[in-house]
């Protein structure tokens, strides 16, 4: 294996991606004093262990990190080792210049291709979860080694490729966190989490596949479970939420019907109107007037 340590400002190799503070693969062969003191984290740091066993502390809590585990540290968190040193072993570290306002809204930057509504979804998954460590996350290792080979190979399109891989890292991390969070829960709890996510992202063009993936289930199983639990197929349940929100907006705001339709995730005011009438017996306009 090759080891390397690239830092923004010092290493020419990563100068094309100014949003990358650091990217390294380090092998620690002997313990050095003060090599890893507790410090406030700058940007978002991903630390992925390849070999050895580490005891890393984030905000007063010490985690035991084994090979294939990923540690994610957010801006401003105190991060380091209580002994002040790196134990013997190998790890990858990736530090990105990312804004994470109030630990709730992730702002990536222009380099990222992630759409607005998906970015909000990812922000939300990441900010909701109290997961500093993601155990057994081999996919991260694969992504990191792809980035590594792109950086050193410089083939056609590598600049874009690496940004896309960075996007991938965010997407996969959010997915894995979401899966872990729902692992081993009973369905009502899982459903409750999904419900929260739907409510807070009603305008997102949810598909059944996406809902299922968000909680780590296959589409068929997911549909069955939602139906059995809630009495509604997933998309109908979503329509319930959309119509409920639309009613609230019709009653309490002066917004146009088109705005309300889009805000609540209907792709047109036509679609909104038809769906609304089928259920309540009134068109949205009629409903507003009557109220």
């Amino acid at each position, binding site marked *: 294996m090759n080891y390397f340590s690239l830092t923004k400002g010092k290493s020419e190799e990563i100068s094309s991606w100014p949003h990358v503070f650091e990217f390294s693969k380090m092998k620690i062969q002997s313990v050095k004093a003060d090599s890893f003191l507790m410090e406030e984290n700058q940007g978002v740091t991903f630390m992925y262990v390849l070999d050895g066993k580490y005891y890393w502390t984030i905000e007063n809590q010490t985690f035991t990190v084994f090979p294939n585990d990923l540690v994610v540290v957010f801006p401003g968190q105190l991060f380091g080792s209580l002994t002040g040193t790196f134990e013997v072993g190998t790890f990858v570290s990736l530090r990105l210049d990312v804004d994470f306002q109030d630990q709730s809204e992730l702002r990536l930057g222009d380099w990222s291709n992630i759409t607005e509504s998906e970015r909000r979804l990812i922000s939300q998954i990441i900010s909701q979860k109290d997961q500093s460590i993601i155990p057994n996350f081999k996919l991260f290792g694969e992504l990191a080694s792809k980035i590594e080979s792109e950086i050193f190979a410089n083939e056609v399109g590598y600049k874009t490729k690496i940004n896309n891989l960075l996007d991938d890292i965010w997407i996969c991390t959010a997915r894995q966190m979401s899966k872990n969070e*729902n*692992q*081993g*829960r*009973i*369905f*009502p*709890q*899982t*459903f*409750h989490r999904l*419900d*929260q996510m739907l409510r807070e992202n009603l305008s997102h063009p949810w598909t059944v596949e996406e809902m299922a993936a968000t*909680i*780590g*289930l296959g589409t068929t199983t997911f549909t069955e*479970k939602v139906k*059995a*639990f*809630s*009495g*509604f197929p997933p998309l*109908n349940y979503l329509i*319930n*939420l959309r*119509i*409920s*929100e639309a*009613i*609230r907006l019709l*009653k*309490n705001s002066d917004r146009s019907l088109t705005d309300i339709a889009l805000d609540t995730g209907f792709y047109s005011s036509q679609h909104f109107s038809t769906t609304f009438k089928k*259920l*309540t*017996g*009134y068109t949205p306009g009629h409903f507003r007037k009557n*109220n």
Partner: protein
Amino acid sequence: MDCIITIDINTSAVKIAAYDLAGRLMAFRKGSFSILYPQADHSEQDPEQVFITVLFVLKDLVREQILPSNHNIISIVFSASMHSVLPIDSRGNPLGNAIIWADNRAKNEADFIKKSANANSIYENTGTPIHAMSPLAKIAWIKNIQPERFRKTSKFISIKEYIIYQFTNQYVIDYSMASATGLFNIKEKRWEQDSLDISELKTTQFSDYVSVFNADLKLKPGLAKSLQLPKNTKIIIGSTDGCLATLGSGVFGEGQATISISHTGAVRVAGKKVIKDKENRFFNYILDEETYISGGPTNNAGVVLEWFASSFRNHPSIVDFEDAVEDLFKEATLVKSGSNGLLFLPYLLGERAPIWNSNARGSYFGINIKHQPKHFLRATIEGIIFEIYSIGKILEMYRKIDKLYLTGKYASLPICAGIIADVFGKQVIVSDEAENVNKGAALLGMIDAGVFKNLEEAAKSITVKNVYEPVAENNDTYQKLFDIFQRLTNKLSEEFEMIEKLQ
């Protein structure tokens, strides 16, 4: 053939069931909505989602089950959970979400009212224990903490009133629901002035009160059309889930009590007189002009089992709750009565009756090196039932109880039924009805339709499916454990408070 539709709106779902005039279940459908927890101690329902869910489920049931079978809908009877508060403005628009029974935000207001000079008379007159669950305390909280919202409020109604308003454009509340607000005088059947004074409320800020049999409401023509209901469908206001579950399990007379174990639990009796408890531990709700449903509720029933199944145990993957529970009850039978001396206090959500202490917390006690997961499981079930028993035991100071009738999705499972019989040392009866609340509502509709003369006759129509007799030896073991259960509960109140502060 004629049929009656019953709509029960509970904490997390609406259940709609249709019965023919012989009382036979003909169709059933349910739809869930979410309980919202915007912050600690807060539990809310989205009134629009509840309404949309009712519409959706009712529409499907009528279209897919009632119409194809050529049944003629003669009436719709409503039921709902007690204690919800929804402030609405003068145009009938909700001011935020409904605050439901489980919401604990009004703890301080409840304490304050409890310490006031007329606390005892308020409890005696209204029948509702003074607690954060009570609309009395919740409205005081809105006044204190959200004065702007309070000012804008034209009426304080319950979720049930909101749904009925959507169906009929009228504000009415039945005696049962009114008697669960802490604001209604159950003896004189009018709003209670002492309660109103606490938050400086006027009677115009509430709906008009009517009997549970009231059928004067008119269904909105537009809605009738969209739902494909006959225009002349009667809307019967109905009662609350607690009162109707009691009626629907066949309990009405002397010597009978219902034990309900679903998400929460309760022990209830029906009678012509209220129970006057010096320590204000029991509720007395009105069912009809001459019948009170009295008893005590516990927070920690099915929800604790669900916690055990989902949180106490690690599961390899997302688990169907029904599967998990099936497995659990099977596993629990592998342990002898008394769980080899492992004891569980179930106060995971604080507790209402009989200790009324929001700081109470759960505990496993008596653990030795031989206890295994199955012992913890059985101890958990037994602990929940000990808590039910601690209510029943005090109720027996006021009412003779010979037979126990079970209701709620957990109580009638054979293992629970058996443990209840053994813990109480009494005969336990399981009825033939899957949905006691809906059945209770149907009985009201059947009385309205002239099938039965009165509630007593209606209650007697419920048939027995299974009878469980207590085993003396097990009763003996349980009595000894229950003794320790009570000692611990009484002894640890200071430590409950200390540890609650660290959570």
